[in-house]
């Protein structure tokens, strides 16, 4: 009963010389919501493809409810609903026709199909536009339909690949509401995103990947724990210090200082540990004759943990 609904072990996937996924490991329990975070090109989509059975791994195994898919036509694929990163919809036909088509591919027929199509349109709030051609939809509406198309066959496991990309805040909220209600309904989610806030809101577990590898796999609480000691220092300097910044390299090379950025007369430091970091930085600045006129520190957010782990920010790749 408590066998993981999804287990992936040692997944490797290469594209020519490039290793897109390199030993990916994941086990997800029924009803869990896992956020899969990573910068551009980290290998998230490639991983999702392998989990959904779209792509054969070069090495490693994926098991859904304990078994691997056998071939493209494996009926167990109905367990999985994939929300692709791209909008995969036919613009020339109506929302309802799109859903009917995707539902039929999943083997639904007759009244079951009709009922489910109506239900998912209701879920994503597009019932009133059911008969309209999809190309007349707004971007946010298309995103919602893109989600709905993965739900028609009522899958147990949902793989969401950046389902809110390029969406306005209002539609994003609507999509979040949908996903939250799916969670409450007991569905298992794997949610890929660049946005830590989304993960904080939707998931109870975070997997961070970079360069095809899992570099953190922890509960939200656990990650917060890691973040607690890390932090940022903001120092206001005298104008004279700002014009001649030869001291900056010295600060950067300090132990426990992860980054230093000077903007005008404001110096922002990322410190592995706020208090010791502050002490070292102030000493160093004093030694270089830099006068500090103000100091503020603040606790790291999860985003900063990401920076700390990968050395790069979530969204500039």
């Amino acid at each position: 009963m408590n066998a993981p609904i999804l287990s992936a072990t040692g997944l490797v996937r290469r594209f020519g010389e490039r290793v897109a996924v390199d030993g990916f490991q994941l086990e997800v329990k029924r009803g869990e919501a896992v956020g899969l975070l990573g910068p551009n090109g980290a290998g998230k989509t490639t991983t999702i493809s392998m989990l959904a059975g779209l792509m054969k791994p070069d090495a490693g195994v994926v098991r859904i409810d304990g078994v691997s898919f056998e071939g493209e036509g494996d009926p167990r694929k109905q367990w999985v609903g994939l929300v692709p990163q791209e909008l995969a919809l036919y613009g020339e036909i109506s929302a309802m026709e799109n859903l009917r088509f995707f539902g039929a591919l999943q083997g639904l027929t007759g009244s079951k199909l009709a009922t489910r199509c109506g239900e998912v349109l209701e879920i994503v709030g597009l019932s009133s536009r059911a008969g309209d051609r999809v190309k007349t939809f707004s971007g946010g509406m298309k995103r919602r339909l893109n989600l709905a198309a993965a739900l028609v066959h009522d899958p147990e496991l949902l793989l969401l690949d950046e389902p809110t990309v390029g969406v306005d805040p209002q539609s994003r909220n609507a999509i979040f509401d949908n996903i939250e209600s799916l969670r409450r309904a007991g569905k298992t989610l794997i949610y890929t995103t660049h946005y830590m806030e989304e993960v904080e809101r939707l998931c109870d577990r975070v997997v961070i990947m970079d360069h095809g590898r899992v570099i953190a796999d922890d509960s939200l609480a656990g990650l917060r724990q890691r973040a607690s000691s890390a932090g940022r220092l903001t120092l206001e300097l005298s104008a004279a210090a700002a014009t001649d910044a030869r001291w900056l390299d010295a600060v950067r090379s300090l132990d426990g200082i992860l980054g230093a950025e000077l903007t005008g007369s404001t110096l922002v430091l990322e410190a592995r540990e706020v208090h010791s970091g502050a002490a070292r930085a102030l000493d160093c600045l004093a030694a270089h004759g830099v006068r500090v006129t103000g100091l503020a520190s603040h606790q790291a957010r999860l985003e900063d943990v990401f920076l700390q782990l990968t050395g790069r920010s979530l969204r500039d790749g």
Partner: protein
Amino acid sequence: MNRLTQLRALIRLDLRLFLSDRRALIMLFVVPIGIASFMGSLFGGSGTKNGKSGAAGGGGGMDLVLVDEDDSAVSRGVVQSFASDANFHVQVTNSTVAKDWVMTGKRPVAVLLPKGFGADVLPGLFDSKRTPELTVWHDPGRSMERAMVEGILVPKVIQSVVANAVNPELGREQIRKGLARLDARAAAGTNASGDKLLRELMTRADDFLASRPAGSLLQSSGTNSGPASLPLPFKTQSVPLTKSRGGEYNGYAHSFAGMGIQFVLMSLLDMSIGLLRDREAGMFRRLRSAPLTRATWMLGKVGSFTLISLGSLVGCFAFAMAVFGVRIEGSIAGFVGCLICVSLMAACLALAIAAVGGTPAGTRGAGIAVLLLLVMIGGAWVPTFVFPRWLQSVSLMTPTRWGVDGLDAMTWRGLGFDAALAPIGALLGFSVLLAGIAWLRFRWDDE
């Protein structure tokens, strides 16, 4: 997994997408019908048989202007002979108008039958000074038509002359004139010794001629009447070597087959390119996340493409039948078989081109070039029987040739079902080959 449900959904989707695409509909119904109508009228129109059902504005027959300044029995016979020939669409007018029409290119050829033509044409045989002269005005750019008219003028004039020379009415008129002369001599008391016998002979001859219907002197079967229908001393028979049950070359039947196939291929290529675009847009990721096999998917594509092609060809031929009187003179089963196999072949060809092309941009350019070549060599534009022999052999290697030939055989050539077997077999063979290429080369994943 319910393969049939999936297959039905795939086919229905394509038909639905096709019907919602106005451009595709125009490409498959309006454009081929328009172009085929035009090409059909250029290349021979409908044969004599179907000439009567030509569209308004003279769908059948070549335009010919006649000017009859003679207005004799012979000249009228010539005019009537042309008028009753379905190969011509005849207008009679005066010389000024005729010359103007030809000069401005409105009509290709005009023939002037000058005054005295009827009276001089027979004596002219023996006296070259009296030989009448027919004038043929023609558009310098239309020498084909001129040659055709000049060629056909000869038998038509001879026909009319002969018919009038042996016309019983004319004979009886001669007899009446003779009898009147005898009467006059008797009245004047100057009758010769043989007059009684002569009168007897003439009266008998008159009775004989009176018992014959006009124009029947040389034609005992007598089904036709009128002076112009007298047979020539020789017969011509055009032999389009393939003719068996009654077909004559029908430009419309051919052009609708050719253009139908051409635009079906173009449209299906367009749809295959759409598949490549779908793939680039990530649509296949969603399709493949379902328990759908590549085989089911491809079968769905072949199925929907074949149906769309069938719809278009049936539409084209229905139009050609309704408007241009094209008929399936041969086997109906053969015709249907050819239509289905042509459609199947077109579906497989389009998929194969897209499979080899790989990307939408790459496929479009090369694909259109390949199609045009196949369509041209296959005889969709002009019938292959006008090709030099080497090209005819080359064209046998194109599936389009077999498609056009099969449809031609079942329409205007009027051949039986057995004549459809070779085209059907060849088309099926090409379909298998092309489907194989599509199967091996079409990538449906992102790798």
